């Protein structure tokens, strides 16, 4: 990190995990939500739990899922990717279910939680995030399958795979 050169050439390491490339941005946003959701849930549960127990417990659940997603994306092993698929799926179902529930039954959600109103209090990022996460994971599971057949050895091949995967990620991200 001593020499932040601005040229896009000569990458230090090829993107070999969900941690690298667009994954960095995903992890940054997931870490932010993990931190803010757990801090918020901790304050709510500690200071005024009886005020809205259901909402605050769901805040806590959201916090746990964000932490799980952050860690599994950062680890990036095949096992971690499977857990990440699960947590992103629960997250997507959660934001849709809690979003609908919070609109239908406002009395249960007197205070906004991360997922109420489909994450409208957070610029709908909680709704978009699991979709991007699942797309990124799908990209990696596809890549893992093709790498079983194609043997990449030289740095040139790595470089080619790198630019190709970056392009593909860009395309899949561009759609959303």
């Amino acid at each position, binding site marked *: 990190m001593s020499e*932040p050169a601005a040229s896009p050439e000569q990458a230090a390491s090829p993107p070999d995990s969900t941690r690298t490339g667009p994954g960095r941005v995903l992890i940054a946003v997931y870490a932010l939500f993990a931190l803010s959701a757990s801090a918020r849930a901790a304050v709510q549960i500690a200071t005024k739990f009886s005020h809205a127990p259901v909402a605050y417990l769901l805040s806590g659940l959201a916090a746990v899922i964000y932490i799980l997603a952050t860690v599994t994306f950062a680890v990036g092993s095949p096992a971690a990717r499977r857990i990440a698929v699960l947590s992103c799926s629960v997250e997507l179902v959660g934001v849709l279910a809690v979003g609908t529930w919070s609109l239908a039954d406002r009395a249960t959600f007197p205070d906004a939680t991360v997922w109420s109103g489909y994450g409208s209090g957070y610029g709908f990022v909680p709704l978009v995030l699991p979709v991007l996460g699942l797309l990124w994971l799908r990209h990696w599971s596809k890549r893992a399958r093709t790498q079983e057949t194609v043997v990449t050895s030289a740095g040139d091949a790595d470089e080619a795979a790198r630019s190709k995967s*970056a392009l593909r990620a860009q395309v899949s991200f561009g759609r959303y």
Partner: protein
Amino acid sequence: MSSVNGAVPTTIIVAGLALAAYALLMTALNRRMGIGLLAALGVLEILLLVLVGLIVAKLAGGGRPASLATLIGYLIAMPLVPVAAGFWGLLERSRWGSAVVAVAGLVAAVLMVRLHEIWPVIHV
């Protein structure tokens, strides 16, 4: 009740959004994080530290928000945003390092709005 000078939070919003725009331009141009983005993050960090100082002075002067715990959480987390983004962005030697910096700029701007909601004497 006197208020925290609104100039600093407003400057942070403008600086954060400008940083995000600059970083997204770098991302679009396929440029990795360079010294320019690092310097801009440094400016944002200084502004955030100044704001933390102003709010701490306000607390020392006897002012209290509705949720003190939340405010203290913000005071701790706020200055960490540019630092964390700097490290995480430099680790990524591609355009996506710049994209991480863009997130930090947006987050800084959003945090100012949230601060005003937590404690309305902090004007934006």
